[in-house]
């Protein structure tokens, strides 16, 4: 009974008083915006890198671009995301006040290096005969890649991109470092007013968990559907 009383009180303190649920909703919104923006940016960067690397491997062209891509993936995968975030926020975009945008850029650039490998595997999984058929019709290397190979590659890696979205959703919780009001940061701020860490942290953990479970469900469903259409 005492526990139930605590729960009710803590709920009131955390969410109801001073309309704090609105802060949580704003935080959740920011978390989702950053995750979505970073995923889209990551897929664009990843696809670009994968295409450059594949064309370089197939034809030996684009040497300089390929070298830049190698450098980029080495740096991004070789440094912690929090450090990248701090560098973006305090050095590269020191003059920017839009910290959500900086977050999208930082996480997107980070994600791109990982998505590139996914995309590369997806491109490699497309039968080489597709490229040959495109080229034999007189289509250029670029058109063949863009219109024939990439759409099939993206379909191959769609579930993996869903998983990348899920891990980004969780990863973005470190953006509170920059004072961005994401869900985690809102919880911290509320705790500084209520002096009760238990309820808010468990509550946001459950929100994250709930979102991940829902997303997982859709990724699984997507995987199943794609597997069926391949048969």
């Amino acid at each position: 009974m005492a526990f139930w009383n605590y729960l009710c009180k803590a709920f009131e303190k955390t969410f109801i008083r001073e309309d704090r649920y609105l802060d949580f909703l704003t935080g959740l919104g920011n978390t989702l915006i950053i995750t979505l923006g970073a995923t889209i940016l990551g897929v664009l960067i990843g696809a670009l890198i994968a295409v450059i690397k594949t064309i370089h491997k197939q034809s030996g062209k684009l040497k300089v671009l390929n070298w830049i891509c190698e450098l980029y993936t080495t740096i991004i995968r070789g440094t912690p995301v929090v450090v990248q975030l701090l560098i973006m926020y305090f050095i590269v975009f020191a003059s920017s006040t839009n910290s959500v945008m900086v977050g999208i850029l930082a996480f997107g650039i980070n994600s791109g290096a990982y998505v590139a490998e996914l995309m590369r595997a997806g491109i490699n999984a497309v039968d080489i005969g597709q490229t040959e058929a495109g080229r034999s019709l007189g289509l250029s290397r670029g058109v063949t890649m863009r219109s024939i190979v990439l759409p099939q590659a993206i379909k191959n890696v769609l579930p993996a991109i869903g998983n990348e979205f899920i891990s980004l959703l969780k990863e973005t919780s470190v953006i509170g470092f920059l004072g961005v009001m994401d869900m985690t940061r809102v919880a911290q701020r509320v705790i500084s007013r209520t002096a009760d860490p238990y309820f808010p942290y468990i509550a946001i953990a459950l929100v994250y968990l709930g979102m991940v479970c829902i997303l997982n469900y859709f990724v699984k469903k997507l995987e199943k559907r794609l597997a069926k259409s391949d048969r």
Partner: protein
Amino acid sequence: MIDNAVTQTNETVNAGDIIVSTRGLCKSFVKDKPVLQGIDCDIRRGEQVVVIGPSGGGKSTFLRCLNMLETPSAGQIFFNGEEITAKGVNLDQVRARMGMVFQHFNLFPHFTVLKNITFAPVQLKLQTPEEAEKKAMDLLRRVGLEEKANAYPSQLSGGQKQRIAIVRALAMDPEVMLFDEPTSALDPEMVGEVLDLMKQLAEDGMTMVVVTHEMGFAREVADRILFIDQGIILEEGAPETFFGNPQMARTQEFLSKVL
């Protein structure tokens, strides 16, 4: 063998009659393991050439070199008198005038049948979308597959896929059609429909180079047979003489096994 590889650089090729020719064509994928060891060959306009020979002998590689899908290691290839092995040639423009049909069809699975056929001519601005669609429907009607225009490749049988693949190549108005074992991946009962279409093409005077194991087709349709083994043209001739009176021991052995 290596002597065959010496190219005859200064030989001029008559563009009027001969559409594709090769001089000293060599290809090796791995060092010291040549697949083609110097092939000289002229293909005349309107001619149907059937290439036969044992597996691994270089037939497919020869065919794939003709539209530069494989880059030759040495030698020259001419298309309408233009050397397409030379540096700076726009190969996309060359390939747009050479149709190719693959063993595994290679239809684009994410496009409908109609878009498979119209995509390249529209993309390359050779035809307007309306022209391309009309032409595609005409060709589909000709092969009896017009009701499949809006189907996806996965909904078609193997024979239908290959006929669509042939139509896709024909929609580009090619000057020559290259067939790389077009019936080898088909169930036996579907081989006939594809060969029938190819015979029709031959009757219409299409220039064709066909790599195949279908000896009946070769005998019936070919103007000339090329027997390629170990990377060279071991023997060539009209089907009657080739099948009736093969000269080389290797050819006789091969024919005794397949006929």
